């Protein structure tokens, strides 16, 4: 259908006017984001204080004394607390999808206010773009802040506890560290908006978004090792790789040249061949992999956004 316009430039809402409107309408988003950031940094600070305190006490005490055991237990507890902190941060994208994304359009459709907005002097596309843009900016800022908090806590954990437990490749570290958490929060936002636009009712949209985002999270974790080519090392001895590597598979090279992982060495002594293999992602693959994964997540987010525009343009509601 051709859109024939009689006036060459029809008056449309100004960008600043649109921004003011969306800001006014979503003003609860700012205190909510500030609250989340404050809570996350307060928790991070508490974690660090607990770690350093326990470490100091365990360093100062004489080994094999009850006081020392208590200090060690404290350190373990502080270490566990950091894990909980990271698990909580891993839930952040789910919360963004369900509480920011899903209601965004679903609530408009539920209340019929989209009829109000779509009859003002602005096109559905501009309206949707404005609807997306402000939450996306707030979510990006919040997720980036959380990522920094996670890095801050992890640095303390590495200083105070056994180093290897806090490797960058650990799933709970990897997905709360660097740029991946920002990308997954944006994807969750886009998924929430799309689901809300399709489902048109807030509560069901929130539930479906939770399920979809959790499923996508699991899928990404499963796909992650395959995002970049594996490095292999074959030789004698093993466990000599430099830096923080992500060991995926290791075992022995048998006489016939086939590789047998250690967990399949059923017969005692069956793996005693002297030559071992190791398949891993090297330390220098960390940031490329974060980049590839973020690009993948953002591509999915872009697809969800495009689908939302398509639904709106077809007026399929």
């Amino acid at each position, binding site marked *: 259908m051709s859109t024939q316009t009689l006036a060459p430039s029809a008056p449309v*809402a100004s960008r600043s006017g649109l921004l003011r409107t969306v800001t006014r309408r979503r003003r609860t988003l700012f205190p909510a984001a500030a609250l989340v950031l404050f809570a996350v940094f307060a928790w991070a600070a508490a974690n660090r204080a607990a770690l350093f305190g326990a470490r100091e006490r365990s360093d100062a005490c004489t080994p094999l004394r009850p006081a020392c055991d208590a200090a060690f237990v404290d350190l373990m507890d502080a270490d566990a607390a950091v894990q909980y902190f990271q698990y909580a941060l891993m839930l952040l994208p789910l919360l963004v999808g369900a509480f920011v994304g899903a209601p965004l359009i679903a609530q408009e459709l539920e209340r019929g206010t989209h009829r*109000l907005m779509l009859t003002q002097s602005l096109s559905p596309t501009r309206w949707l773009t404005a609807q997306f843009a402000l939450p996306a900016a707030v979510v990006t800022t919040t997720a980036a802040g959380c990522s920094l908090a996670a890095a801050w806590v992890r640095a303390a954990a590495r200083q105070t506890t056994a180093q290897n437990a806090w490797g960058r490749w650990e799933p709970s570290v990897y997905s709360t560290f660097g740029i991946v958490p920002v990308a997954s929060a944006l994807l969750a936002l886009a998924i929430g908006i799309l689901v809300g636009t399709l489902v048109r009712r807030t509560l069901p949209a929130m539930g479906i978004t939770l399920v979809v985002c959790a499923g996508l999270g699991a899928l990404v974790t499963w796909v992650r090792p395959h995002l970049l080519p594996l490095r292999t090392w074959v030789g004698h001895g093993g466990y000599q790789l430099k830096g923080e590597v992500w060991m995926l598979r290791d075992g022995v090279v048998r006489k016939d040249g086939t590789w047998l992982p250690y967990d399949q060495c059923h017969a005692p002594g069956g793996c005693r061949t002297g030559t071992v293999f190791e398949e891993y992602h090297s330390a220098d693959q960390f940031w490329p992999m974060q980049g590839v994964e973020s690009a993948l997540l953002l591509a999915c987010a872009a697809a969800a956004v495009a689908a939302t525009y398509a639904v709106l343009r077809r007026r399929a509601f």
Partner: protein
Amino acid sequence: MSDRAEGAAAVRADGLDVRRGGKTVLRGVCLELPAGRVCALVGPNGGGKTTFLETAAGLLRPHKGTVRLLGADPDSDSGRARLAFVGQDKPLYPRLTVADTLRMGRDLNPGWRPDLAARMLGERIPEQARIGSLSGGQRTRVALALAMGKAADVLLLDEPLADLDPLSRHHVTSVLMSDAAERGTSIVMSSHVLAELEGVADELLLLDNGGVRMSGPVDEALADHRLLTGSTAETAPQDVPALPGVVEARTRGRRTTLLVRGDGTLPGGPWQSEEPSLETLLMSYLRSPESPPWIACHPGETVPEATHTGAAA
């Protein structure tokens, strides 16, 4: 208003089919509502009033055919700038204040007229009150104020008077009519209260079962029909309903009442003839869905069937 296409209809539909949830709600609707008039959109529930208004507002995409507002596609920037729409449920953001809501109207509409919005709002609604705390009638006033402030050329209002008390109803109608008088605004408003339309509407559109049952100026519609009353004994009532031009025949005891088209000369007995009221006329058409539609001829209007492909090209 200056760039309004000369002579273009306020709303023009050509072979309009609109589906909603897989169901065809409007079927082959062809009509032309002249600009600068106040059109009453009436019909039973589910007759297609809301769907028609939402399609004219560019909120629903026609499945077939076209709809034009003053010559412009309602789903275009120029179309949207010319129309204002108030939905049946008067949707507003409950957590915004009245002042915020009007600021939103100013921010989203370059031609915003605060004076028009304020006139519709009246004085008794506190600006700092949240929309959620207002009564239904007050909310309606805010929604209408938002539409008025847009200073649109065509106002599409779905049941604007439904939940207003008599005083507010008078206020709202008077502001709408003043706007029509001052700015020549075209108004299309749906209503269930037929008597409210008397003296307000000068154009009539009756939609029933997804099609047009009546369309044309109110005074022509009234002048084209007569209400005949006669005694059953003198008029052989059993033959009457079959006569051409009889829209509705009702017999009560010894009295037969007919609503007929044309000058009201009917064979068979003496009839007392009078001009029907608008309410009587509409009720008769609503009660007899099988009678043929009444459509006033607007000059330049093409035959509906021929426009299906021609106008869309």
